[in-house]
């Protein structure tokens, strides 16, 4: 028993991981039984509920009972929580608990479980949101023909997502990474009889495939450079300070940057970063609970998690790239959110934009800020999506132009959505405020310590925040406030059943009193404090990088960003008032004033058109060219050889017939001719024979006579 006692985290983790898989198997293989057909949600709910309980328990024991691997070090002296080296880490491989998945010579994949603060935080987020989405789906998907199958896929997804979080190996992370993509594919295309979902699911999978190939190449390069794919092993290898080999005539620094960038291709696609964000808005074709779970709270955040997980691996150049991509995403997606009329798509672009914020934060070195935003965002964005789902469930449309005035009809949905909106906008004392301020803080800090261009992320983040507040107010305005624009739909609208509103209430509460907020009874541990920023490991191995510590913005930054946040809210509110409340100038006037910009934004910056004209077209053209080359040239050559062979055969045949056989035949013809000639002699008349005899005698006599002399 002591063995189980000392290795408890592993058993917890394994249970958490396999319970959802069990739920999947139950629903997938028992799909014929009456129980699953009628009550397909029971076992998945139980399974994921237990996993949630275990995750919370693991979270508690990791964060509150152990402050770190060093029992003496409770809370570090400085205000930034536990020091990185003192944080709690449980690596099962180190404890001798691992599974050798694959071995080929030096190449080994040993599956182990890595549990640290980041892991347990993600576990709670995933199991909690997943549980609430399961609960919500019992109402939302009620009566669907393939109700049990939906829950089966939710279970498979949760399993894959948890595997992605728990694994300690880059290649296994990649495996689960693709598996969540598969679940996302099937869930986006859940209503496959319709027109859009199959297209959207294919687009999602293929876009991600592009990213994943980059990810895989990154993994290959990492293995080539360091000979290991185990994440803690890689960190230890880097921190040992052993020099990194130069390959292909490239210096180690460039190689590390390249590896980082290649690895980042994966998150770029999965976390819908510009320019690979195109799949996420389309993915809204899936059922709304799926959008909340996969395309808002968990899977799309997996990219951020992954960057966080190997944060110490990125060189400053790679981080700069990440920051730039995040910044572009934050602003571009936010602008599109301003003009879209589909409630889910506005939220999808908002998700894109917020993921951009997270990447931006990580890129500027704000590890805690980025991960913390992931955490707060998961709850309020899931809440927003589920609220949107509740609205869609009630009015049967996603077009906000058909809504309006629903506030009175759906009070619970309205209130919870309002809370989540305020959290997303970053209104003080709502969860989003803490994380977003942290991001701005770090961006400002980065700007101050860099050149003038280094202020761009901060600037974009601030402008993006204004836009965020504005488009969310617009969304609320079009949906809940004002006059109903479609009387019929309004009349049929109703509040959703408790199975749907309870998850909303829970998520709204979490957006309000986020655990990130230092609440006294939780022991005063804010999420960012429990996530110590890992010092750059790659800097320890590369002498060319100076310093690896990411700085901590001081009090001045905190105050500044707080003021900035207030300013942002004021500007956002003012814009909203003028546009929608007072109608000065009003939305249409804005459009008229900036027709070009509106066309560009409304055309979604023409990313789709661009890819259609380049990648897709090139792919099809190449495929047609190759196929016709194959048929005409390669197979043509084969057939030509065949035809040539036949022609040769015929030629041979002809020669055989005319020359060889002709020769043989000519003997026959000759003898035939001769025989015909000589046959004439054979008349049968004695007189004739006598005549010939006499003639012969005469002839011979003459010959003797002449020749003899």
């Amino acid at each position, binding site marked *: 028993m002591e063995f189980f006692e000392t290795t408890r985290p592993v058993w917890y983790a394994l249970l958490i991981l396999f319970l959802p898989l069990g739920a999947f198997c139950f629903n997938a293989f028992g799909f014929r039984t009456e129980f699953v057909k009628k009550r397909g949600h029971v076992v998945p709910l139980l399974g994921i509920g237990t996993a949630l309980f275990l995750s919370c328990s693991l979270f508690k024991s990791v964060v509150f009972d152990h402050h770190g691997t060093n029992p003496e070090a409770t809370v570090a002296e400085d205000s930034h929580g536990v020091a990185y080296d003192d944080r709690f880490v449980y690596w099962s491989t180190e404890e001798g608990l691992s599974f050798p998945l694959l071995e080929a010579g030096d*190449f080994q994949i040993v599956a182990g479980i890595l549990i640290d603060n980041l892991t347990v935080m993600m576990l709670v987020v995933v199991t909690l949101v997943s549980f609430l989405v399961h609960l919500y789906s019992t109402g939302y998907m009620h009566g669907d023909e393939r109700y049990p199958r939906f829950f089966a896929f939710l279970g498979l997804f949760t399993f894959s997502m948890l595997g992605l979080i728990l694994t300690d190996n880059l290649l296994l992370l990649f495996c689960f990474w693709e598996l969540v993509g598969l679940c996302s594919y099937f869930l986006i*295309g859940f209503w496959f009889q319709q027109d859009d979902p199959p297209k959207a699911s*294919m687009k999602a999978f293929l876009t991600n495939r592009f990213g994943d*190939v980059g990810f895989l190449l990154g993994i290959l390069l990492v293995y080539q450079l360091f000979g290991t794919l185990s994440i803690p092993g890689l960190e230890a290898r880097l921190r040992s300070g052993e020099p990194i080999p130069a390959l292909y005539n490239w210096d180690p620094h460039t190689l590390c940057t390249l590896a980082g960038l290649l690895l980042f291709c994966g998150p770029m696609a999965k976390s819908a970063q510009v320019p690979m964000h195109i799949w996420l808005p389309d993915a809204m074709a899936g059922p709304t609970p799926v959008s909340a779970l996969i395309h808002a709270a968990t899977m799309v955040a997996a990219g951020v998690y992954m960057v966080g997980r190997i944060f110490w691996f990125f060189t400053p150049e790679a981080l700069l790239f990440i920051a730039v991509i995040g910044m572009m995403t934050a602003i571009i997606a936010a602008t599109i959110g301003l003009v879209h009329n589909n409630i889910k798509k506005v939220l999808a672009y908002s998700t894109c934009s917020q993921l951009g914020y997270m990447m931006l934060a990580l890129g500027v070195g704000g590890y805690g800020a980025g991960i913390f935003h992931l955490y707060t965002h998961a709850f309020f964005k899931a809440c927003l999506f589920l609220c949107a789902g509740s609205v869609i469930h009630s009015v049967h449309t996603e077009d906000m132009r058909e809504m309006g005035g629903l506030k009175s009809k759906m009070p619970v949905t309205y209130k919870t959505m309002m809370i989540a909106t305020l959290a997303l906008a970053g209104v003080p004392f709502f969860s989003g405020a803490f994380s977003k301020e942290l991001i701005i803080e770090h961006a400002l800090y980065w700007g101050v310590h860099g050149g003038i261009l280094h202020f761009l992320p901060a600037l974009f983040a601030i402008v993006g925040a204004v836009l965020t507040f504005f488009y969310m107010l617009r969304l609320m305005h079009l949906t809940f406030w004002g006059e109903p624009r479609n009387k019929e739909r309004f009349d049929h609208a109703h509040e959703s059943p408790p199975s749907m509103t309870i998850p909303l209430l829970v998520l709204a509460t979490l957006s309000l009193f986020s655990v990130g907020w230092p609440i006294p009874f939780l022991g005063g541990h804010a999420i960012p404090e429990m996530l110590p920023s890992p010092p750059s490991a790659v800097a320890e191995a590369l002498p060319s990088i100076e310093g690896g510590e990411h700085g901590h913005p001081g009090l001045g930054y905190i105050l500044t960003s707080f003021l900035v946040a207030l300013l942002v809210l004021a500007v956002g509110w003012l814009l909203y008032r003028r546009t929608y409340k007072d109608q000065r100038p009003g939305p249409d006037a804005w459009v008229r004033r900036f027709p070009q910009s509106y066309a560009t934004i409304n055309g979604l910056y023409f990313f789709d058109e661009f890819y259609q004209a380049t990648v897709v077209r090139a792919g099809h053209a190449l495929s047609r060219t190759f196929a016709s080359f194959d048929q005409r040239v390669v197979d043509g050559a084969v057939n030509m050889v065949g035809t040539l062979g036949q022609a040769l055969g015929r030629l041979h045949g002809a020669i055989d017939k005319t020359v060889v056989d002709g020769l043989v035949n000519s003997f026959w013809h000759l003898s035939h001719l001769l025989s015909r000639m000589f046959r004439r002699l054979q008349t049968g008349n004695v007189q004739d024979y006598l005549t010939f005899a006499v003639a012969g005698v005469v002839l011979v006599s003459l010959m003797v006579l002449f020749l003899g002399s």
Partner: protein
Amino acid sequence: MPESSLLTAILMTPLVGALAMMCVPSERRDVIKTMAAVFTGLPLLLSIFLYVQFDRANPDYQFVEFHSWVATFNINYHLGVDGLSVPLVFLTCLLLFLGVFSSWNINKATKGFFILLLLLEVGINGVFMSLDFFLFYVFWEVMLLPMYFLIGIWGGPRREYAAIKFFLYTLLGSILMLVAMIAMYLYSGNVGAADGGIGQRTWNLITMAQIGLQGGWAGAPAFLGMQFQHWCFLFLFIGFAIKIPVFPFHTWLPDAHVEAPTAISVILAGILLKLGGYGLLRVNLLCFPDVIWAGGGPTAWATGLALLGMINCVYGAFCAMAQKDFKKLVAYSSVAHMGFVLLGIAAANEAGLAGCTLQMFNHGTSSAMLFLVVGVIYDRAHHRDIEGFGGLAGHMPMYSSVAFLAIFTSLGLPGLAGFWGEAMALVGCYEVFPKITVVSTIGLIVTAAFFLMTIRKVFFGPVQDKYKDYPDLDKREWTCMVPLGLLCILLGWFPMLLLGWMNSSIAKVVEQVRSF
């Protein structure tokens, strides 16, 4: 190793079955089918026994049998298996067994069909077990003939064209192989013990590998400025490349597949293609290691192999994307997948060869499943036009689930078997040929693209009325799919169930190749 007749038992049971079947009147179809099931089922059981009994840690040949056959020319009945062949023997027995069930409805000359099927099994297993090059060649040819008739008689509308193309193409390869083989036989007599030979002419593949390892071929006269071993390598390579098939020798494959009946397609893609890869490993790599690897680095020949592998991956995938016929699409996808086999061989390191062998086995299960999937829908719709289907997922849910499993295994989704072959081949190849590997990954994207397009067109979309009444999988079809599906999932999470058996043999091959 004590003398054991297990291999002969596996090899000859189908032959006995075929002979016994000849005595059964042709009208007794169910007797014939049952006999076919029994006489493919028995070797399957024996091959499982072989798999279990096989000593994984031992890199040498096991279950060796040796009997003199034609003493004058030193031809022997010499069988044995190592880690490279054991999984393939099992795969052969499994697919032939399933092949019997998937051809249960064949009513045209049933007796002849099943006799040929059993003979085919003898030929294939013989190639995987032979340690005597002459015997290898005999079995190679034994396998060719039944295949010709199976395609040519029971095939589709253009069956004669396809069968003749298949036959002549393979025969061309065989002849080149024969030339190289005789040359090797003749020269092996000149190689003394110091150079790995035995001082007399031999067909023994083990001795030939010894000669290769000791550099014994180097003394043979060059021809047209190219060394003896390079000529042999080239000839043998072309022979095996046609089977794999390697670009540009691949065009027989789509034709043969399109015309062949389902079971034959399954066997063709599932095993026959692997014979090429196996031959490359067993003969080319082991007998001529220095052609691939010299002076501590890959030779130009290895680069050439890798380049061909890359072309297969990318070109095959692009060609598949343009196909309208479901079966042809799967056939071209095989071309793309076999590219990874070449990449792994070219790299000649543990990871690469592990990738190559995993890919061979896993492609055996996934492509077999895919052809079964195509067969099922062809049985119902009597066409295979991808554009003509739609919405099948709606009323054939079980069928669609199986099809998705096969497709996702085939496109290399992690968690399913297909991933490991591709990943390991790429890992291995990246060490030696980084640029070629990078280009090859384009194939991964294109493969995903055409398979997903197929799913969208065939399985997704609105339900079409004309396909409404199609029954879902029946018991027989289900039986064929389940073992393959289970293997796909199982080997996705436990690749060591396969790799564990092959590792020591792979390590031996690598050691021999890398000694140059």
